[in-house]
Structures are given as structure tokens and as C-alpha cells.
């Protein structure tokens, strides 16, 4: 038993300690994957390699690439893409979807509260220090009512499956979460390469993201605007997510603008067109808070629009996401999510939170320092997987070093038990075979006035280095198409 009989999986090594998405503990293929397993098994490794190369060149020709800056010249690379999809069963997806909406709603209510009466702090549920010491809390947003009452129009929720078979949320991203365009590109690439497999599964479409985004952005138009003029604001073509920005603008059918294309006159925002100024009403901005308006925030920002914040404050333009949302996706806030959900919605969290130790609390700091080898230590304000230490991977000296860092600045760190991300068979170029690799899932939730939408699918990110737990694309991660099956 446990022997995998399938050409392309003949050399697949299954580590029984890890939770494998395809195979159960005894090595049997799970029902949901069995048809796919047979279909892929019909290919030889050679054929598979060919398909894989084709898919890669399709990304390359579509210009879905990012720049790697070397010593002399920069080269273009594609985001590694794996042709073997991940499948999520309808009953599992239902939980993820409800859980993602629940979190987004709770975070929105939390943001409204901390920028208005601050009841949750006054009642002692969330400590004052979390906002007073957060660089992302903007005093400019206090008592400002964003159109439609929405702050986090777009949320990206990072979810993993632990070896207990349950989903856990690792992180909420409510500044400018990226990655949705890759969900759609992955689907396109897989359809091009292996269209036959789609006949055997009833999979939800992912191409309806842009239309829903536009619909929901239109619901948060400023007062007095009939048909809003929506634009996407990008930092420019050298930004690593530029492809996504142009993709979203194109599929929504709206203009893709840079800061220099806009100007503010009498607190209204206009773009400069070939026929003169045109007023704009809703800005889906992919520029960070501190760069959006050099007259209000960082004066050296060349990416922003002078006067934009005043126009926003006056209610003449909508910014999505609202400025100042960053305070709520701070990793320190994450740890209070179960309380935040309970407080505002009077519900229990649908998706689990990973238990978190706050180094700012003396007793928890003590526990962390004594158990570093069993924990992941994370700085609370770094994005992109930087600065993370995984306890059981550290040498004795490294542990001491981390201890010193944490002790020097406890507020800066939180610690969590080492979660064992589930693994998924992934084709590895070097060995020309399938191997187990850790995966996570980023879901995309959009909130408008009285309406929500969760993209049925998501970005399954793969840590391509063997044993690596960090799946972030800036750290060399790849991705997979993700199928949510219809019930």
C-alpha cells in the first residue's frame, strides 16, 4: 500500500509527517483529485516538460514578467507557474468564503471605530498602544467618513492548511493587496496547456473579478455623482505589480493613471486628457498612503497628487482602499482578530487564527524567549516575508541573536507556533519530477456599499525551495491555478 502508480508520479516521495493535499495518510489519492491524477498520469514526464515550457513561453510573450536587477543589466523573469492545479471542494470553500467576508467586515467596523469613537479601546479589548504606536494610524483620518462607510474595499486574506487539516488565517492584507491578476493568468495558462482536464471538473470561473470590482467601486462613489468616473492609480511601469495595475484597468475598461496625470483644482480631482481636464470620482489606488499626496504626507513623493487628500476629505473623490487602513493589518492587530470579530459582529471566527504571543506583554515575552526553537518570530510591521525567523531552523548562535533583537524591542515582535503548511505535488525543473512543496492561499474579497464579493478561486502560492515555508513571490515563490468546484 501507499505505492503511487502513475507515470509522472513514479518518483514522488511522500513525507507522512506533512499534510499532503493529494494523498491521504495511507498514500491513497483523495477522491477529489483522483480524476485529475488519472488524466495527468496519461502524460509522460517528457510530454509534461513540453507543456510546462509552452506555458512558460506564453507568460513570457504576454509580458507577464518582473525585472530582476543584476549587477550589470536587468533581466526579465516570469513568475514560476505550476501546471498541476490545486482543487478546493465546495464545502471547504464555503467556509473560506464566509470566513473571509467575516474578517473583512469586522476589520471595516474596527477601522470605523478607531477613527471615530474608539469604543473597542475604551472598553479595554484592544490596547491603546496598538494605535498610538502604529506608524500607519493616520490622524488625518480621524472623524472622516469614507464614502459608503467602507475602508477596506479590497482585502487579501492569506490562509493555510495546517497538518491538523484545518484552515488558518496567517495574515490580512488591506492596504494594496496584489496577486489577483495572477489568479486569472494562471487559469488562462492552464486552459491553454491542458484544456482537456477542464471537461472533467465543474470549476468556478475567475474572470468575473474585474466586473465585480468595478461594480463595487461604483457603489462607493462620492455624493452627488451620477455615473462615477473610476480610474486605477499606479506608481508607474517600473513597479513590480504594474502588470496587475494595467490588467485591472484594462478589464474594468477604465483609465490607468499615474500621479502626474492627475491634478486637483478647487478640491476636485481631474485627469489630463488629449481633450483637456476630465473629472474623476473614484480612485482605485495602488500607491501607498504616505505617497498619495506630497502636500499632506511625504513631500518628496513624486508618485502622488498634490491636494488629493484635501479633495478626499471634502468627499469629492473616493480612495480605495481608504488611507490609514494599514493600522488594521499590522501583525499585532491580527492577534486580536477573534476579539474584534466577536466585538463587532457578535460571532465566533469562522476561520481560525494562529495563536500569537505578544512580546510586548512581559509574561508572553518570557514564554517566547524560552521556546524560540518552537516558534516563528515575526516583526509586526514588515511586509513580504522579510525579517522572519523560524525557530527550529536556527543555530544556537542565531537563537541568541534573535533573543537579543526581541529583548531590545519587544513591541516590534510577535511569535507564533510553527505552523506546518500543507504540501502539494509541484513539478520541479531541476529534478524533472513532482515533489512535495508547501502552499498557502490568498483569497480576494471586495466590499462595497451593502454588497460583498469573494473571488471563487485565489492565488495558491508555492514555496519552491525544498522545505521552505515562506511562499511570498518576492522570496522566489511560484503559484498554481486554484479550482473551486461547484457544488
Amino acid at each position, binding site marked *: 500500500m501507499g505505492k503511487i502508480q502513475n507515470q509522472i508520479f513514479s518518483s514522488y516521495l511522500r513525507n507522512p509527517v506533512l499534510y499532503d493535499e493529494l494523498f491521504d495518510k495511507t498514500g491513497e489519492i483523495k477522491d477529489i483529485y483522483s480524476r485529475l491524477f488519472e488524466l495527468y498520469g496519461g502524460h509522460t514526464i517528457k510530454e509534461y516538460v513540453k507543456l510546462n515550457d509552452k506555458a512558460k513561453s506564453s507568460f513570457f510573450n504576454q509580458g507577464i514578467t518582473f525585472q530582476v536587477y543584476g549587477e550589470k543589466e536587468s533581466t526579465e523573469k516570469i513568475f514560476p507557474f505550476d501546471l498541476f492545479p490545486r482543487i478546493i471542494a465546495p464545502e471547504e470553500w464555503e467556509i473560506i468564503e464566509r470566513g473571509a467576508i467575516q474578517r473583512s467586515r469586522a476589520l471595516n467596523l474596527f477601522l470605523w471605530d478607531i477613527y471615530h469613537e*474608539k469604543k473597542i*479601546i*475604551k472598553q*479595554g479589548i484592544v490596547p*491603546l498602544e496598538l*494605535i*498610538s*504606536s502604529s506608524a500607519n494610524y*493616520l*490622524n*488625518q483620518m*480621524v472623524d472622516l467618513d469614507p464614502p459608503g462607510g467602507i475602508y477596506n474595499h479590497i482585502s487579501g486574506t492569506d490562509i493555510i492548511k495546517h497538518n491538523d487539516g484545518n484552515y488558518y488565517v496567517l495574515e490580512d492584507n488591506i492596504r494594496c493587496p496584489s496577486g489577483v491578476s495572477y489568479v486569472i493568468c494562471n487559469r488562462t495558462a492552464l486552459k491553454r496547456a491542458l484544456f482537456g482536464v477542464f471537461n472533467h471538473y465543474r470549476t468556478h470561473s475567475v474572470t468575473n473579478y474585474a466586473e465585480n470590482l468595478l461594480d463595487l467601486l461604483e457603489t462607493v462613489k462620492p455624493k452627488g455623482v451620477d455615473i462615477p468616473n473610476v480610474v486605477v492609480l499606479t506608481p508607474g511601469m517600473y513597479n513590480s505589480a504594474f502588470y496587475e495595475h494595467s490588467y485591472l484597468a484594462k478589464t474594468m475598461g477604465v483609465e490607468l493613471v499615474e500621479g502626474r496625470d492627475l*491634478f486637483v*483644482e*478647487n*478640491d476636485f480631482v481631474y485627469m489630463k486628457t488629449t481633450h483637456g481636464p476630465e473629472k474623476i470620482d473614484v480612485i482605485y489606488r495602488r500607491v501607498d498612503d504616505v505617497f498619495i499626496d*506630497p*502636500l*499632506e504626507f511625504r*513631500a518628496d513623493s513624486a508618485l502622488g497628487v*498634490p*491636494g488629493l*487628500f*484635501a479633495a478626499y*476629505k*471634502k468627499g469629492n473623490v473616493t480612495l480605495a482602499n481608504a488611507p490609514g487602513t494599514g493600522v488594521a493589518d499590522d501583525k499585532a492587530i491580527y492577534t486580536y482578530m477573534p476579539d474584534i470579530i466577536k466585538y463587532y459582529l457578535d460571532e465566533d471566527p469562522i476561520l481560525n487564527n494562529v495563536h500569537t504571543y505578544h512580546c510586548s506583554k512581559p509574561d508572553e515575552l518570557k514564554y517566547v524567549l524560552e521556546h524560540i526553537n518552537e516558534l516563528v518570530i515575526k516583526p509586526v510591521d514588515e511586509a513580504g516575508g522579510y525579517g522572519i525567523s523560524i525557530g527550529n531552523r536556527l543555530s544556537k548562535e542565531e537563537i541568541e541573536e534573535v533573543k537579543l533583537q526581541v529583548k531590545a524591542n519587544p513591541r516590534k515582535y510577535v511569535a507564533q507556533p510553527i505552523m506546518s503548511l500543507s504540501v502539494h505535488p509541484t513539478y520541479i525543473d531541476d529534478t524533472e519530477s513532482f515533489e512535495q512543496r508547501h502552499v498557502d492561499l490568498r483569497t480576494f474579497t471586495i466590499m462595497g456599499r451593502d454588497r460583498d464579493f469573494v473571488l471563487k478561486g485565489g492565488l495558491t502560492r508555492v514555496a519552491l525551495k525544498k522545505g521552505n515555508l515562506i511562499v511570498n513571490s518576492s522570496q522566489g515563490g511560484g503559484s498554481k491555478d486554484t479550482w473551486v468546484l461547484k457544488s
Partner: protein
Amino acid sequence: MPTEYAITYSCENKYENKVRGAHWQFLIIPQTNSSQEVLSIEFTNSLLEAESYSINGLGFKTIRLKTRKSFKSARFRAKMRVLKSEVNPFDFPLENNAEESYKELKSLNFRVDHEAFLKKTDLTTLPENSTSLWSLDTSQTVFTNLQNLNKLVNAYLTFQPSTTTASSTLEEVLAKRNGVCQDFAHLFCALARMNGIPSRYVSGFLHQGSGYFGDSQMHAWSEAFIPKIGWVGFDPCNDLLAGTDYIKVSHGKDYRDCAPIRGVLFTTGKNETIYTVQVEGDQQ
């Protein structure tokens, strides 16, 4: 008896290299509040561009100017007339129960409501060795304590123009023990906040009729929040309470929230700003 002030703010910016287009924002219009009212504003500039008025992120009125012209220098002038009613800084009911005030300062609700003016900023962070420069004496009222703080800051620093800049930290200021009104205000705020008293940086104009420090520039002082009384203005630079001579423009966590001029320029190289302020009073 109210006083009518005629305030003239003049500013000249010179640039090393040609500027091709610019945006400016001036935070110089006196606030309209219970003791003052702006009667008129007359703004002119050498670029002959039309100005516009807006409200910044913290709620204060601004003058905006933008140009696409090329230039190497630009002059701006704002003439403002303000009616200021007579302010008696001691005109408030005295705290008869200091204990209750201290209790309120410590309460969570109070600290949450005044969160913005209780936290440290880059410009109001005390160096380690100076945190004990001043502490509350709970046997006296909050007001008396703040008067003492005003006196202490005034005595601790010496007024000395051009030794510090707008971005000087308290560490630099305390090392030299001299500075300008901004530095006095920052030190006051830092010590008050450290002791749990909400305190904010105030930018405005000072009528210099009676020979106060503050030269012919904009002035800076502080406001502290006293439970049951509210915000009270202290000028540590002159060891005074802010009275009729003080015409407030804006307040914030520190200088950065209140910078009178902000510019976004399309140029390279250095630039130089010279500005002067003239305040004339005329009792009605």
C-alpha cells in the same frame, strides 16, 4: 475690548536652478475660533497665479498655489486682518479638586480621546538622560504644574536664533540648551506628554508690541489640556500664558503638522526661503 490686527506674511523663495512647475501650500490663515475671527485675506504672488483655498488633513484652512511656469525665484504675500477679542488667560474656574483631575488624566477614556497629543513624535522625543527634567507635583493643581513647566522650559533653554532648524530633535536642542520658539514648544509638549498631560504644538502670530521674543517670524507655543477646563495656551519661549497678543493659526503633534509652507517643485539643486511677518495691532 477687541483688537484688530493687520498681519502681513511675506515670503521669497530663491532656487539654484530653474524650477519648471510647482505647488505650494501655505498654512498661515488664522483659525476662526471663540476669540478670533478673520476679516479679510489678500494674497498676491510674483507668478501672478490665482490662489485657491482648501482645508488640510488636520482641518486647518490653507492657501494653495500652483504654477506651470518656469522661474528661479518667487515671492508671496498675504495680508490678513483679524479681529481678536480680549483674552484673559486666567479666566477659567479653578480646579478645586486636583485629585479628581489626576484621576481623569489616568483614565483610559481620557487617554484614548487625547491619544494624538499624548504620543511621542520624532520631534518631541526626549533623550534618555532628560526624561526626569520635570515631573508632576500632585499636591498642586494641574494648572500650577503647567505654569511651573512653562517657567522651567523658559529657564532651561536660551533663545538663540539660527542654532537649530525646523527638523532639530530635542536631543540636539537639549545638548546646546538653546533654540527658537519651536524648540521651546517641542520641549514643553514632550515633558507634558511624558507626564500624561495632552499637549499640542501651536503655530501662529505674535503681536510684538511689548518686546517679546519670537523675532519677525511666525511664532510657536503650546496648548495643554487640563481636565474640566480644556485647552490652555502656554508660551514657554516668553514664560507667558497665551493672551490677546497670540493669534493662532493651527495646532498639531509637532512642527511637521504645522509647517507654514510646503512645496512640491520640479527642479534640482538648493533653494532658500526668506520670510518675514509683521503684526500691527489697533485697539477698537
